């Protein structure tokens, strides 16, 4: 037990957080005045709301502005229930949590289809709609006055006072929420969520169902907010539309930014700080909000990654630790059964431009196909269509006889088609090992995934950089890491978009050997590349695109001499002729 505690304390910023928690607990116990207890209770409530908010804002990377709304829903539901004699927190807390989660589920379908500022505005709209409902549905919500006269909280008939009992209840729930959050975002989900947040397109291509993860994050954030709102109701015993207004949302967002977007310890630190800070500045009278604002700006300027992030980087600067040993390599199971890729009449327009214009193409199992063409000829669009990142306007794609052109990228990846990108897409903050492990969607077991990732990195000859953050790696190594991530999904078709771009001669040589090895293992390859020498080495067949159409198809030697290819590459008139069989 003591060994486990020592190991836990030695990890990340656990030791200073543990000491700080002890100091805060001792300070609260020793002062013991109702004001101090109220502030700590309030801090716990906001910590709970922020731990929830981190699921959607921090882990899923979506700026939801509905957290205050879910908080308010929890407060209203708890308030309505608590007015009935004999209804205690054993009923109000679960009901509030459930109500907020159900509302989130109802709005999730339209809202989660949106991205970036559209998502933010849609979630803001939900909050405004609920606020209007609360103000105008007077018979149910009490209108603008809200619901007053809520009796003291009770648990199974035992009255809970406002002071210590409420403080203990709130912080017990914070501890439970922290453990739950750690469990839900730990293990394989940790790197998968980071990849989803930093490189959503890569996450989808690695087989991660980001829609499902975002939905889960949204529902969890709502549930936690509802629970926090119910606790707030029981501490002030009234609920009014102010609880649905923007300041609650702003408080939670500020706590997440100041404390740290993904760190539970950061949420707690941020909540304790932000609840106490304005109180510390009260003696400044009318200037207290100015001082509060300046303090927050300083926090964000000094610690842009949040207090938890700043503490972690400080710790790493002060105590340099050797990288942990590499996980024991685990075998990467053989690829899925080879299949035939059949493309018929595939068309994709961007505005008035036909990027892909009626392409017919069959790639047989175990084939290594190279695709060449001038810039803008449709190579990457064709790859994106096959990988599901783009939807065709016309035509079809079949994989092993099954139509896949309407499937999402993650489903296509899980069907056995993996890819890399022209511009490398890695989560820079993650180690190379975890960038690769994130792609192991089958097992969802971090130990196994890291073992398989170790084996792949060793095969690619880059096991020595396994623990290095990808942001610190040179382009050639990053390219290999991306390929390793594609391979961990055990694809039978690998799509590579300009894999040799930016690589030196030695790195091209290594990459070429790797692709030939993979081809030798029976993997089907489609390689988009400008380097014809490289393609001649790895591909047994070349296709040349021009203006979104195939202008030549055959062995590499035939294709490179084809007049249409020469004309296409030299830009002569009449280049886009018919396809060469």
């Amino acid at each position, binding site marked *: 037990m003591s060994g486990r505690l020592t190991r836990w304390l030695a990890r990340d910023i656990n030791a200073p957080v543990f000491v700080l928690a002890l100091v805060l607990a001792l300070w609260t116990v020793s002062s013991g*005045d*109702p*004001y101090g207890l*109220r*502030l700590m209770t*309030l801090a716990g409530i906001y910590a709970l709301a922020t731990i929830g908010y981190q699921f959607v804002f921090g882990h899923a990377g979506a700026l939801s502005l509905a957290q205050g709304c879910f908080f308010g829903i929890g407060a209203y539901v708890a308030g309505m229930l608590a007015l009935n004699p004999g209804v205690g927190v054993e009923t109000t807390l679960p009901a509030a949590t459930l109500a907020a989660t159900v509302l989130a589920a109802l709005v999730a379908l339209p809202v989660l289809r949106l991205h970036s500022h559209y998502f933010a505005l849609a979630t803001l709209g939900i909050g405004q709609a609920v606020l209007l409902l609360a*103000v*105008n549905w*007077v018979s149910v919500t009490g*209108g*603008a*006055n*809200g619901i*007053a*006269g809520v009796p003291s909280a009770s648990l199974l008939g035992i009255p809970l006072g*406002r002071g210590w009992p409420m403080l203990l209840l709130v912080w017990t729930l914070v501890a439970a929420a922290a453990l739950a959050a750690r469990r839900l975002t730990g293990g394989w989900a940790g790197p998968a969520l980071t990849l989803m947040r930093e490189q959503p397109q890569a996450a989808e291509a690695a087989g991660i169902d980001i829609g499902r993860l975002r939905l889960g994050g949204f529902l969890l954030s709502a549930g936690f907010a509802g629970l926090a709102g119910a606790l*707030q109701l029981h*501490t*002030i*015993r*009234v609920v*009014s*539309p*102010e*609880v649905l207004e923007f*300041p609650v949302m702003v408080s939670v967002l500020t706590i997440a930014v100041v404390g740290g977007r993904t760190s539970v310890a950061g949420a707690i630190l941020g909540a304790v700080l932000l609840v106490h800070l304005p*109180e*510390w*500045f*009260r*003696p*400044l*009278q*009318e200037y*207290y*909000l100015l001082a509060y604002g300046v303090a927050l700006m300083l926090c964000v300027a000094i610690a842009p990654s949040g207090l938890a992030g700043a503490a972690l980087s400080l710790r790493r600067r002060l105590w340099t630790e050797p990288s942990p040993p590499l996980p024991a390599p685990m075998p990467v199971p053989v690829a899925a059964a080879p299949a035939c890729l059949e493309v018929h009449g595939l068309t994709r327009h961007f505005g008035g431009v036909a990027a892909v214009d009626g392409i017919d193409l069959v790639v047989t199992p175990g084939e290594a196909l190279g695709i060449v063409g001038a810039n803008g000829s449709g190579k990457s669009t064709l790859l994106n269509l096959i990988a599901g990142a783009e939807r065709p306007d016309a035509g079809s794609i079949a994989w092993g006889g099954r139509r896949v052109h309407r499937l999402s990228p993650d489903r296509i990846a899980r069907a056995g088609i993996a890819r890399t990108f022209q511009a490398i897409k890695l989560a820079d903050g993650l180690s190379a090992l975890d960038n690769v492990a994130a792609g192991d969607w089958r097992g969802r077991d971090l130990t196994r995934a890291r073992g398989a990732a170790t084996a792949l990195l060793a095969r690619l000859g880059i096991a020595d950089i396994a623990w290095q953050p990808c942001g610190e790696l040179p382009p050639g190594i990053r390219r290999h890491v991306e390929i390793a991530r594609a391979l961990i999904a055990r694809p039978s078709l690998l799509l590579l978009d300009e894999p040799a771009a930016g690589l030196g001669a030695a790195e091209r040589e290594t990459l070429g050997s790797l692709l030939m090895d993979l081809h030798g293992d029976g993997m089907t390859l489609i390689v988009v590349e400008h380097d014809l020498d490289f393609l001649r080495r790895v591909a047994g067949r070349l296709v040349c695109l021009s203006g979104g159409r195939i202008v030549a198809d055959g062995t590499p030697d035939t294709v490179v001499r084809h007049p249409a290819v020469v004309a296409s590459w030299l830009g002569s008139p009449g280049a886009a002729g018919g396809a060469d069989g």
Partner: protein
Amino acid sequence: MLNSSVRRILAILAAIVLPAAALAEVPRIPVLVPVTGYLSLEGTAQRNGAIMALEADASVTFEVSDTGTSPEVAVTAMRRALRNTDVGVIVGPILGTQMLAMLPLAEEYQVPLVTISGTAQLTEMGNPWIFRFFPGDAVTKIAHARYVAEDVGAKRPAILYQSTAYGQSGHARLVEAFAALGIAPVYEESLDVATKDMTATLAKAMAAGPDVLVLHLHSGPTALVVRQARAQGIDIPIVAGSAMHQPSTAALLEPAELKGVCAESGSSPISGGSPEMEKFAADYRVKFGNEPDAFALAQYDAARMLLAARHAGATGGAPLRDWLAGNAFEGLAMTYKSDGKGNMAHDAVIVCYDGESRVPRIVRRYQGVDGGR
């Protein structure tokens, strides 16, 4: 000699480190008012009125805390104030939802809460610790409706009210008062405090054919409605809520735009009426650099009644509650006496602007409207 910055820093450190009680040598009256947010004008007037009264008596000190516009912040401010063991009374905010959140604590700690909030519900919850020194909606809205019916002679009012606790409470009372006078509003609409463009609302209201516009809005929206109504050429009388009596509201409008505009209020200190009232207004201008309104005067009267109770031996808690509940006080605005529920103010006035200045004239006084005195 320490300079003021150092003294301020030491004060902050002392406030953080030392229990507040250790700093207090004379009884302290917490003044918890909204000096930030959408009620900052009213809250600042409230604060100024309290300061005017309390600074004049060396036997007490006071401490002003901002409550913003959130019940949560108000409760925290009250908890902070209650750290002092010598707190016998608290001046509470004008915002009704904040007062509703503070009421259970007042009962728990047995501390009287003195406020100028007009929210009707406050004195209808059976809490004996609340004392309201501004006429509530039960008084002002009857006066409002009676003036519209009896003096303006209107039969077809259009009512625009705020979608806040203040607005909904006042609207309900107005509709009741009009019904008692046999009048049915031809148009009713609630407005969000953030609404800036009133033209569509005014067009809909006018389409209903009203003969008077009855407003029950906060300060900013009141000024916007009056200005946009005049800009649209709407020349029917406008009888507004108490926000329109505030000099800060009138300052947002040109005198010509104010012609034909009247407002209900508890009082109108800048309208004069007695040497004491004129002295109060002059002192207020000197001290705060702006014009006093009825909220400042009501809070001034309330604080003076607290001091009177103190000098009579009722310093706080139950004795003070009983004194406030059982005694009358002759204030500058009116005579205050509890109706048994904590409603201390029972008079209202109607003021009107003449179109040439921003100082309104009191045109009608309604005394003992609710029969509570």
